[in-house]
């Protein structure tokens, strides 16, 4: 933990945030710069390979691992606003690299991974922060994505960040450890089961009477938001970074 130190951070936006949730990326930049850190964006970055790997297309995921290492090997800290992508890297990159039989890549992964952080984890564990100077006057509930909860052990980090937000009214979500049913291609391959799990999650979200449901992973949120919109509930989902980017007078 380095309280007070200023870092040169490299943002890995992830392919789906880049395309579908640019607002999350902007919010990450906003928060990091407000805290005094510099943000870089290596241009050649694309995708971590998670979807391919998890669906069984390991051969297709391998070049993406190589690409990530090349793009980010010199970073002081890599910040990623997606818990599942970070979990993919931590859980699978080392053995993928070993399997590819490239010793340089194995060392590259080994050296790089300790500098890779999920966004909330970067704030709480690397920087030791809770209050990042945010203001967000809404009723909010937090969904702990499985990968954040189990693979990354984010624990109460995101909740502590949220508690420190001024103006926020934070309500706890019942069944916090329950999966929302997204699971990548699971959502389309097993649409019925995924939908039933989702229905339980949206019911829990609605029970909180929150205006906004947040998380550290837009993939879960896209899935939850999809149903909340279909059900015409008016409840929004928003990545944690976008709440932490909120500022007084910004009219969030």
């Amino acid at each position: 933990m380095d309280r007070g130190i200023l870092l040169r951070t490299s943002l890995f936006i992830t392919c789906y945030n880049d395309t579908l949730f640019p607002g999350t990326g902007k919010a990450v930049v906003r928060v990091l710069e407000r805290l005094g850190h510099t943000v870089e964006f290596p241009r050649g970055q694309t995708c971590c390979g998670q979807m391919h790997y998890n669906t069984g297309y390991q051969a297709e995921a391998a070049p993406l691992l190589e690409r990530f290492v090349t793009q980010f090997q010199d970073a002081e800290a890599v910040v990623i606003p997606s818990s599942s992508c970070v979990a993919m890297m931590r859980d699978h990159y080392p053995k993928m690299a070993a399997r590819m039989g490239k010793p340089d890549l194995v060392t590259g992964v080994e050296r790089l991974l300790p500098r890779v952080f999920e966004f909330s984890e970067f704030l709480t564990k690397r920087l030791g922060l809770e209050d990042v100077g945010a203001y967000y006057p809404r009723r909010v509930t937090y969904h702990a994505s499985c990968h954040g909860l189990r693979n990354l052990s984010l624990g109460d980090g995101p909740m502590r960040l949220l508690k420190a937000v001024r103006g926020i009214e934070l309500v706890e979500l019942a069944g916090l450890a329950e999966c929302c049913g997204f699971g990548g291609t699971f959502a389309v391959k097993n649409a019925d089961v995924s939908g039933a799990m989702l229905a339980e999650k949206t019911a829990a979200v609605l029970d909180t009477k929150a205006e906004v449901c947040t998380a550290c992973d837009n993939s879960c949120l896209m899935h939850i938001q999809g149903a909340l919109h279909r059900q015409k509930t008016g409840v929004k989902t928003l990545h944690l970074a976008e709440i932490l980017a909120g500022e007084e007078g910004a009219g969030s």
Partner: protein
Amino acid sequence: MSGTALDPKTAPAFPIAARAAMKDSQLQRNVHHATQVIQTKRARVVAEMADWQELREAGEHIRRHTMEHLDFYLQEFEVNCARAGGIVHWATDAEEARQIVVGLVKASGSDEVIKIKSMTTEEIALNQALESEDIHPFETDLAELIIQLGRDQPSHIVVPALHKNRKQIKEIFQREMHLADLGDRPEDLADAARSFLREKFLHVRTGVSGANFLIAETGGVCVVESEGNGRMCLTLPETLITIAGIDKILPRFEDLEVMLQLLPRSATGERMNPYNSVWTGVHAGDGPQTFHVVLLDNGRTGILADWESRQTLHCIRCAACQNACPVYRQTGGHAYGSVYAGPIGAILTPQLQEMHYAQSLPYASSLCGACYEVCPVKINIPEVLIHLRQKVVEQNAAQVSSSFDIEALGMKAMAVTFRNERRFRAAQRMGRAAAKLLPRKDGWITWLPGMLGGWTQMRDLEEMPQETFRDWWQKREKDDR
């Protein structure tokens, strides 16, 4: 008569079976309720163990070590079991195991057997094989009795009748035991089963059991249970036949210290099983005088040979992963088309079929990791699921029809796109253009074509933003300059 056994070779794909199962709201309520009750009990007794994580690690270590030296320990078991008076048989597959057991029962001179709950005998559809030879098997475990009398199939490895509630069980008992005015309190049902079974215990001369553990060092066999019916089957008959997968081996008697702490807490939320039986061979004038053990492979050496999924064999069948699984809780066990349901079933079943069948099972998971978290021997089920998905993809690719595999084509095209930043940008632009062709309402897409239609079954999709993050970043950099 037993119902038709669950057979992965003929079962429908999981998504189809799951959809059908989820229409049964009574089943869903039963499964939800039962798994909730067991999970709560488990959580309580696990929380009182300060060294639970160390215990899990010890369990994992014992299991890994055993699998690494399985050939050695199996032979050690055979020698020690035989020395104590047991007779060991080896069965390569289900068919051979059935033949051996049917032959042994016939040789025992009985046309009836009393059975202890055993998933391994379910795996090989033993009851159906016995019945076709006019041998009557009587299940003595309460849940298995419910299944047998209801001509049903097990849906859970520890509580096979978990999908039935008390009222449904009462109806089965009333009908099959001819008890007109039976109540539905647990004690009413247990009483009915007790009187029904007592007579069988007293006169049936041949018993069939599974095993929780085979102890190599002593040649002993261990069975744990809650009801005491198993103890009756192990002691009263003249002939006892035990069927066990080769994965049930433990090296030393001492290893039970770890396993008998992990198993009951994980399985039923008890600190200790009410009945723990360990027997070794035969003893003159005490218990069965003829004792056979049938060691079953049925695909297990194939799993052992795959070092990435070998951990599947570490399983001690506690069902904690089933209770914790949000997919299992929605569908119940039958949707998995195999006696092994839930996360363990999703990894075990396709491998027992040498990956020829049940290929939808590795995808029957959101990879949430709840199974791994509770597994007492730390089997990383998500990791094995992903490994098996890779096998499925590879097998499909090897087939001629693979050139028409839309998923594979899409995945490959995307992977190529991601290998180059310019191509990725172009694809983002194309995606935006293509999305304009879809039906939309106030900035939301309400319908998607083909496979993706699963998404819009109950969700909308927000339209793609006009500007990607990287476009925004590039502009910002230009403005800064």
